[in-house]
């Protein structure tokens, strides 16, 4: 079977390149915009995803993990008494001010726990022993702080809320959505540092369920016993934390608009090139009709050309996006492209190109085969 669609498409190489570039542009834009967005959102819940808690108890209406509010630390006792709870511990997540050697002030998001190992946080320790945190005015600092604080090394000191604290360890990949560097210290140390707000207070209670416990039932019982708190499963809390940034800031809307514009540009480029190509090949399509072909034969040709442009454009766009990942990683941003996301973009590319070909379909339907007799 002679493949007129492919041969005709590849015959005009420049037009083919333009069409594919249009699709690749749209695909790259969607991959990069959504990938970066997903990378940012991943930061918004990265600690929740890694902490091995099944349930999180928060103060009422806490919008996301970074913006914590306090409640009495004794609440943890009531949680521990709920059947089905294997373990419950207080966690403080609190913003504190750091004085740098340069005299500048910066912020740090402190995660404070009594036993870090039990809750799998920090999950990527480059240096230091977490058990040493209890031994004095010590803290671990994530490597991402270099960008904000400048170079640092374990053994050095920084002032946190006016207290001289020694860096005794370094972690990796513990990021916050706001890019505020995360540090880790002992629970009581954090309460003492910010005693006015944190004395006898906590910001979260982490809950580990007993094997076989019904998460929904335990969650409901905790909520009943702590009527002024909220209780979330890990997934719910991660979603809530991410949704806060999507819904309460402009970045979600910005992402949607950019994706929409990227798709629009792709559709316009593909539609325009396919339509121009259709017009230039109108006599050929007339010939197809004259030799016995119907509109369906020509729709197949245009549809196949659109699909080829979609696949080639998708592959080029995906390649360019993957090639950008190391560059983006160098500026401490994550470009997340999951297989599911790639599959959605692939299907979207096909739909976009077929949609763009519809304009040409309309033109083809009106072709008068008698035009083949015109000079």
């Amino acid at each position: 079977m002679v493949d007129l669609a492919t041969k005709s498409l590849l015959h005009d190489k420049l037009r083919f390149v333009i069409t594919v570039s249009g699709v690749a542009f749209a695909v790259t834009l969607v991959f990069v915009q959504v990938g970066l967005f997903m990378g940012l959102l991943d930061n918004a819940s990265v600690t929740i995803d890694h902490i091995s808690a099944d349930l999180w108890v928060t103060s009422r209406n806490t919008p996301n993990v970074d913006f914590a509010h306090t409640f009495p630390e004794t609440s943890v006792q009531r949680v521990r008494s709920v059947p089905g709870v294997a373990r419950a511990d207080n966690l403080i997540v609190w913003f504190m001010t750091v004085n740098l050697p340069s005299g500048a002030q910066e912020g740090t998001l402190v995660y404070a726990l009594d036993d870090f190992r039990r809750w799998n946080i920090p999950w990527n320790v480059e240096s230091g022993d977490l058990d040493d945190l209890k031994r004095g005015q010590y803290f671990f600092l994530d490597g991402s702080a270099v960008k904000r604080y400048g170079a640092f090394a374990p053994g050095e000191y920084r002032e946190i809320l006016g207290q001289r604290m020694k860096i005794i360890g370094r972690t990796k990949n513990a990021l916050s959505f706001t890019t505020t560097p995360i540090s880790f210290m002992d629970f009581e140390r954090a309460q003492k540092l910010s005693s006015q707000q944190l004395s006898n207070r906590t910001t979260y209670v982490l809950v580990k369920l007993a094997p076989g416990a019904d998460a929904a039932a335990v969650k409901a019982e905790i909520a009943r016993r702590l009527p002024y708190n909220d209780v979330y499963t890990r997934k719910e809390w991660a979603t809530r934390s991410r949704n806060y940034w999507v819904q309460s800031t402009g970045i979600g809307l910005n992402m949607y608009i950019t994706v929409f514009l990227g798709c629009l540009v792709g559709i316009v480029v593909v539609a325009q090139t396919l339509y121009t190509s259709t017009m230039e090949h109108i006599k050929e399509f007339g010939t197809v009709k004259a030799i016995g072909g119907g509109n369906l034969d020509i729709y197949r040709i245009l549809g196949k050309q659109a699909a080829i442009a979609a696949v080639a454009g998708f592959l080029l766009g995906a390649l360019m996006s993957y090639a950008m990942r190391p560059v983006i990683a160098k500026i401490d941003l994550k470009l997340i492209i999951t297989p599911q996301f790639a599959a959605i973009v692939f299907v979207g590319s096909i739909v976009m190109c077929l949609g763009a070909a519809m304009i040409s379909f309309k033109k083809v339907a009106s072709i008068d085969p008698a035009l083949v007799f015109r000079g």
Partner: protein
Amino acid sequence: MKVLEADNIRKEFREGRGEAVPVLNGVSLALSRGEILALEGPSGSGKTTLLSILGCILTPSSGRVVVDGEEIDSARPGRLPAIRRKSIGFVFQQFNLFPSLTALENVEYALNVKGAKGAGARMEAERVLDAVGLSDRKGYLPRDLSGGQKQRVAVARALAGNSPILLADEPTANLDSHIGVQILEMFRALAKKEDRALLIVTHDPKVRAICDRVLQIRDGLITADGLAA
């Protein structure tokens, strides 16, 4: 055996204000297998409109057309492509080859449209290209062929698939006279050999020399119907 019959064909086109402009005013003709017919007439006489109706591209405003035993029903224009596929082969003045396909592919594609696929279509395309003397040009794109060679490919495309009716629109108009005659003679020989009916619309007086019969059309009416001189 009659393979194409037209009886009292009339055709009007509507102009901008809806005024009816008559182009054919009651044309009748018949064409048998193995017969070569020339249709001559000045510009605007209705030749191309008649060719379009006989080729099932247009339907007549009134009158009766029977193509290869099937009467054309103006109320069912959707049936026309199927009749074209089964019964008609076209040769165009401008050749109308697909520029991205080789000579062989141009012929094979027409066969694909007619329903022939695979090795059978490839062999038939090769056979007709051999028949028109293009055995050594099968892999060439139209841009690499001369005008005469392009028209040979167009003739091969029309011959492919055993359509009983061959319709040619000014097939020599874009060729120099020597090549034009060669192609006409070849076309005639192949049509005769394969028992096809051939109707050639032309201005070219040399065409009548290869035809069995000549029709003169003027102002949408057949004014003369006789044996070629």
